[in-house]
């Protein structure tokens, strides 16, 4: 191999060749640009949160977040909507998490190659690109009409399951994929079965990204609107605002926000809208913050204290 001759020594360090000046300028310009874009992201969130606080803060009260909504008069609250949002979220997670987890495990740990794996991935990706309003109409046909459930919490949750399954499967796959193969080798090398390896080594090592992913998707489910309008309905349960029945009409907070602005007859639309938007935003932000902390805490717990 030819080695180029060494540069003659002795050049003064402070005379900078012109091409270094250009490279240095380009580096500085790009550093600034990247920094600006990153700041832009922060700024956008800050503006959004700040403006919503400014508008919605006045609407917030204990009465507002606990009272049932009003159909025609001013002074309605959003208590049952908050309850419904959490209720549908929990139902959706109960359906989504096991299926997503198990199918993700299958794709990442068992079906290393092969046609069936590609078919599953293709289906999941196609499912992920279907707009949620289309899923909502599908839910309307299947759960509301075909099964005759009318508008129901269960129908809404099942529709959301279909909407979020691909994303959560992807989260599972990526979380498991982040676990180094050397762990799997070590475990299998000790005579563990594939399943023991998954349960005792792979999942505990992937618990941080898994929890983070699940909580982030929970935030999305919490704010989902289009898929619920035709499945869970636009009103809260008539018998009991905090209704645990699977088959009651269950308007969520996000749907309520859309409904008051587009259909409702109440005179204080702006107040309810701003207040609901603020509560929704705070909840979703809390999900994001919780995702970070939970992920970190659980990861420490499952991987032993770092000395």
């Amino acid at each position, binding site marked *: 191999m030819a080695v180029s001759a060494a540069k003659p020594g002795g050049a003064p360090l402070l005379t900078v060749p012109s091409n270094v000046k250009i490279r240095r300028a380009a580096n500085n310009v790009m550093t600034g640009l990247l920094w600006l874009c990153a700041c832009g992201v922060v700024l956008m969130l800050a503006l959004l949160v700040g403006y919503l606080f400014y508008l919605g803060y006045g609407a917030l009260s204990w009465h507002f977040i606990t009272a049932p909504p009003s159909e025609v008069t001013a002074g309605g609250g959003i208590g049952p909507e908050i309850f419904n949002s959490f209720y549908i979220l929990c139902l959706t997670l109960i359906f989504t998490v096991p299926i997503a987890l198990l199918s993700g495990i299958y794709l990442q740990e068992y079906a*290393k*190659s092969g046609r069936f794996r590609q078919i599953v991935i293709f289906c999941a990706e196609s499912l992920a690109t279907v707009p949620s309003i289309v899923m909502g109409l599908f839910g309307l046909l299947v759960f509301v009409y075909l099964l005759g459930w009318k508008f129901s919490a269960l129908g809404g949750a099942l529709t959301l399951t279909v909407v979020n399954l691909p994303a959560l499967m992807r989260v599972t796959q990526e979380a498991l994929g982040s676990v*180094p193969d*050397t*762990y*799997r*080798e*070590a*475990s*299998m*090398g*000790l*005579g*563990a*079965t594939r399943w*023991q390896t998954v349960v*005792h*080594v792979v999942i*505990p*090592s992937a618990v941080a990204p898994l929890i983070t992913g699940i909580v982030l998707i929970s935030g999305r489910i919490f704010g989902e609107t289009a898929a619920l309008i035709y499945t869970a309905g636009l009103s809260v349960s008539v018998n009991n605002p905090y209704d645990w029945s699977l088959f009651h009409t269950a308007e969520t907070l996000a749907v309520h926000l859309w409904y008051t602005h587009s259909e409702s007859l109440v005179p204080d639309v702006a107040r309810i809208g701003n207040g609901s938007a603020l509560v929704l935003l705070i909840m979703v932000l809390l999900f994001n913050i919780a995702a970070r902390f939970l992920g970190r805490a659980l990861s420490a717990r*499952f*991987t*032993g*204290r*770092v*000395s």
Partner: protein
Amino acid sequence: MVEAPPVTQDKVVAENVNVYYGSFHAIKNASLKIPAKSVTALIGPSGCGKSTFLRAIDRMHDLTPGARVTGKVLLDGQDIYAPEVDPVVIRHRIGMVFQRPNPFPKSIYENVAYGPRIHGERNRKVLDATVERSLRQAALWDEVKDRLHHSALGLSGGQQQRLCIARAVALNPEVLLMDEPASALDPIATSKIEDLIGELKNEYTVIIVTHSMQQAARISEFTAFFHLGEIVEHDTTSNIFTRPKEKRTEDYITGRFG
């Protein structure tokens, strides 16, 4: 150089082993006899197939998509590739230590207890005793006995590798396979691992892949020289290093290639 012990029964016998990765023929008709309670070194230039051969003894190729093994590997005379044999049983009886230390992201205790646990041991006293015995065998007990429940990832590279050895010997394997166990370690950690291997052969049959001929000469009684997927020569370590029969072995030993 260790003197070869009197001939004992062969613990592992490879007969015409071939390994393919897809269409690549990685190991060609390798046959080898490995006596019980001895150290056998597999040497040869990079890419010659010594690690591939080692992994065939533990059925680790079952885990690699596209890898295929033909031929026989006999453990005490029984073929580990016979169709009715479960690889889980094989890997229970044959332990493996990998090139890079790969402790689980668990505590030191949990790392060592992992093997016995997955094979059904639940008694805490038995597990405690196994963990202590294994860590002592791996010459790590004194360094970690006060922090057994701290993360194994806080250990140094050399300690992590001894932990991996402890994790393997916790199962009392009959054969211990080591794939360049000291290649990622500094000289002090390396000499600790080498001393350890000298101890381990009193109880286990050790097969070690090594890149270093000096290491092979220091720790092994038998040496097999691999080149281009074939076993060129297999003999006592002293014969390989002082009286090689094959020209290729001699060229490699004397540093003419590799």
